[in-house]
């Protein structure tokens, strides 16, 4: 006899805020009468921390700091990262007699934190990239000449709104191959004893392809993905921060990167 158990949430996007009721139905489909010893519903919020392979050795000392943390209140947003995962699940269990297997079904829903009260005032950031502005370049003299001016409309961004700005290639001795926006997450796990900090790419968006017209502003535009992003987060055990890199690849395969830390929030 086939029985299926399903959780159907009322909201199509499954997004809930603190203080809201998660409503929906449990759907039980069976062809014949079914005996059971009750159906229970469980809600769980969990932070999973993982150590990157390069950090494992260092962290054996404070091993306990990376065990899953149960969340009591839902003031932290859902977030799917590499080393940090924040997940809210609803689990439905149906107990049955000894001979039959218990049935269970879980369903993730998404929590968005309450909008912050303070207004976000966008602060534009202007930047100029030339061989001279580059740090940690060992071969500065070997670099071809170029001048790129640009502007990010804000680095304190609202998650639901795209990252915007523009960029002008004023001149470049070597043709440009590509200009990209790289969205990076910086996850920090640890405690007073020590911590591990890892930066990984979330997504990479090309905004210019080929030898673009000099002097013509090219738009910077990136939509923040869902789930892989949350408001910038700082707790005692872990931190989640975001950065964006403007990456310029030249035809001779020189790679020039300009980094901008972002502060994400919800309004």
């Amino acid at each position, binding site marked *: 006899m086939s029985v299926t158990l399903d959780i159907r949430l009322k*909201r199509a*996007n499954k997004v809930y805020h603190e203080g809201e009721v998660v409503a929906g139905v449990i759907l039980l489909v069976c062809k014949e009468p079914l005996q059971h010893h009750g159906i229970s519903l469980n809600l769980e919020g969990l932070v999973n921390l993982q150590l990157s392979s390069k950090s494992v050795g260092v962290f054996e000392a404070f091993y306990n700091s990376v065990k899953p943390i149960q969340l009591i209140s839902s003031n932290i947003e859902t977030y799917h990262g590499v080393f940090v995962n924040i997940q809210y699940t609803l689990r439905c269990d149906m107990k049955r007699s000894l001979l039959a297997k218990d049935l269970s079904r879980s369903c993730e829903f998404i929590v968005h934190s309450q909008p912050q009260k303070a207004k976000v005032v966008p602060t534009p950031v202007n930047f100029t990239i030339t061989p001279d502005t580059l740090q940690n370049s060992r071969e500065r003299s070997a670099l071809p000449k170029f001048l790129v001016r640009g502007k990010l409309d804000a680095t304190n961004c609202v998650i639901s709104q795209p990252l915007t700005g523009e960029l002008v290639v004023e001149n470049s001795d070597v*043709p440009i191959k590509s200009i990209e926006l790289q969205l990076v997450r910086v996850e920090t796990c640890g405690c007073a004893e020590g911590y591990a900090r890892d930066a990984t790419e979330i*997504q990479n968006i090309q*905004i210019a*392809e080929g*030898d*673009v*017209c000099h002097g013509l502003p090219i738009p910077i535009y*990136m939509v923040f993905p869902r789930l892989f992003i949350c408001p910038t987060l700082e707790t005692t055990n872990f931190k989640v921060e975001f950065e964006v890199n403007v990456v310029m690849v030249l035809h001779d395969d020189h790679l020039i990167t300009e980094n901008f830390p972002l502060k994400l929030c919800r309004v």
Partner: protein
Amino acid sequence: MAAVQWRSSGRSYDAELQRCRPEFAPVDFGDYHPLKAITVTDTKTRRGAPETPAITHSASTGDLGRKKKEKEEEAVGADFEPWSLRRGEILARFTTTEKLSINLFMGSDRGKAPSPGSSAVSEKVRTRLEELDDLEEDYANRIEELNQSLKEAWSSDQKVKALKIVIQCSKLLSDTSVIQFYPSKFVLITDILDTFGRLVFDRIWTMCSDPRTLPESFTVDDVNDTAKETCLNWFFKIASIRELLPRLYVEAAILKCNRFLNKSGIQETLPRLTAMIRGIGDPLVAAYARAYLCRVGMEVAPQLKDSLNRNFFDLLGSFRQISSESVQNQLVLQRVEVPEYLTLYSPAINWILQCIAYRAPEPLLMEMMERCKKLGNNALLLNSVMRAFSAEFVAARATDFIGMIKDCDEAGFPKHLLFGSLGRSVACADPPESERLTILNEAWKVVTKVRSPQDYINCAEIWVEFTCRHFAKREVNTVLADIIKHMTPDRAFEDAYPQLQSVIRKILTYFRDFSVLFSMERFLPFLDMFQKDSVRVEVCRSIMEVFIKNQVDPTRDPVILNAMLHICKTIALTLEDEKRSLSLLIIGFIRMVSFGRDFEQQLSFCVEARASFCNLESVLVQLIHTVNTLAMETSSVMRGNHSRKTAAFVRACAAYSFITVPSLSSIFSRLSLYLLSGQVALANQCLSQADAFLKAAVSLLPDVPRSISVEGKLRSSESFLLDFINNFLSTLLVVPDHPEHGVLYLVRGLLNMVQDYSWEESSDAKVRVYISALPLLAAMSQESYLYSIPKVDSNETLYGGDPKFLSEINKLCETLIGQILDQLKTLGRDEQSARRQASMAFSLFGVLLAHGDLRNNKLSQLFVRTLDFLKLQSQQADMSHLSETVQRLALQTRT
């Protein structure tokens, strides 16, 4: 049987005619009359209740539909040339023989079924080779395959795979190797994008269509959360596409879906995507991306003009990219010349400008034009402006445009194309009258200098229309002369038949007066360039069609006649198939020739025509008809009294027919024309000619085959032959006997032929002829004949009712009746032929009743015998249809 004696019943035709006249019965207004106009008065009272709901419903939706249509028309009307028209043009124009490759990294489609034994390396090599082999056609097929697999993936609910396919396709658009093919590649790939856009939109649409269909004019509020979420998901997925070009194209493809999410979505997206194109370095790729965006924009939100303009200004802003170093390097590498490269832009820029210019205010167009002027290397833009802006706009400023064209760089965009575009505009809209000649002169100065014959003729062909439209034959003649001069060396015309044909078409459109047309000195020499048979015939045909359609009055203009005859001859000489339709055209021409009262001239025209078209049978037939008509016209002009001269002329006409008829191959044409010409000769008092015609017809009879081909099918000739003989018999009534031959010479001759003819075994045709000869003979024995020919003495006058003549007739009748009765008897021996026997007896019965003098005892006996026989027959089962008739007849004859 020989005991039967024939006496014809005497007839008074006048009295019979009187009796036959219908009686007049006055009809009062309001009386029943079968031909009265029908008026219907609706007596049904309309029910008070409203009509059925179904009807009101459909009426209202119809109304809605109309309103909707009107609303759409506000933004884009039927006068907007749709993309679908451009599509084919681009595919046909931008082709290549170079090898093309599609690099699909997904590869799953192709490399999916490797034979288990083959190593990874050989698999790789195989794919490589396949890629190299992709020629243009295969490329198109391959893209079509992708289109199919997109649809399949979609219908099997593999939405992610579908998206991946679309992304891969759009990626192909950043590849500019084999650059000549790029416009066509764009067309093929955007087809797929269109499909994808439609699929996504329809999917979300159906999600909202439960329980009732979403109205066409839906708003965000009509969309449910699930649909919104799905739609949002698509946009998030697309926003995270790594590469610029696919992200751009795919988002543009589903632009319309913004309507599910919010009101201002499209309005905000269009400018953003427009700006995004600035990131594309390759100017050709960027130009086409703009064209696509404009296209989608025009479809989804035609009222948003700003984005269209923005696209164009951005295009101008990055225009210098076209001459950038990386482009130059690419051209050198692919061995493509700059002028050719520049023409690759035309479809894209034309399209963008067409969208902008659509119902745009003139100041905007002026601004666009000014902006183009300011740029260097603007020929490309200038060309697109001329193509895309309304012809009226361009024509009004034609002189300005010529100035701008002159200022353009020689090495850039080909000038003949510029003049071609200008020519197209001034051909359909009129430039100021005072400037026209200058325009023509300036344009032709350039056109005539174009070196390549192909480029030359492409451009010249366009300007012919302008010349025809505004100038007279002198200028057109000059143009034709110039074309001949350019196209004759090295037989260049051989590669330009379509264009040359188009020149002829245009001239024919504007020059409907053929006397003017043919007086153009270079017109016939121009025709001489069509040396390929099929093309020449086609051109001649088109000229003749126009001639026949437009020449209202018959003509004798020697210029027209000479030229047309020349054209007709050309056709007649060259073609075997399509003879029929071409003959019809020639016939049409012959019928338009009239020399008025100059009959001799007309006859000699016919003589000439006969010499030229001796291989076209139907034309010969027409010529004989024409000559016969000519003889009759002469007769009517002379009011039947021929002078010596006209008598000689009609004899000449007869001679013409007499000579011409034998050359026809169709025996029935020959027979009927002999008869007809004989009648005409008779009507013109040419007795010996008439005799000759009729004799010829009679002596032709034995040659009639038993079966003939009618419209390709073999059919028995019997019914045709019977028709002809009956027709012939009725003519014989008025033909006087030849003084040197015996009485009823032609009738006897005919009957002899009928007797000897090899009729089909099972046919009664011979006897049927005999039966139909009886009425003729009866008519011949009357004192005054039913009809006669003015000024020709028929036998009635020749013999004046001579008893000898009458007894000759009676003898002949008796012989015939004897033959008929013999046949009836023969048929009686066989059960099978009872039906035939009855039917023949019935015919005989009819003739006896109508034409025999039944006061004659023997004849009346025969009559009664026939009647009795019919009664007997009618009792048989399958003859019951006769019984009633026979009964009635019996009654009538007894009273």
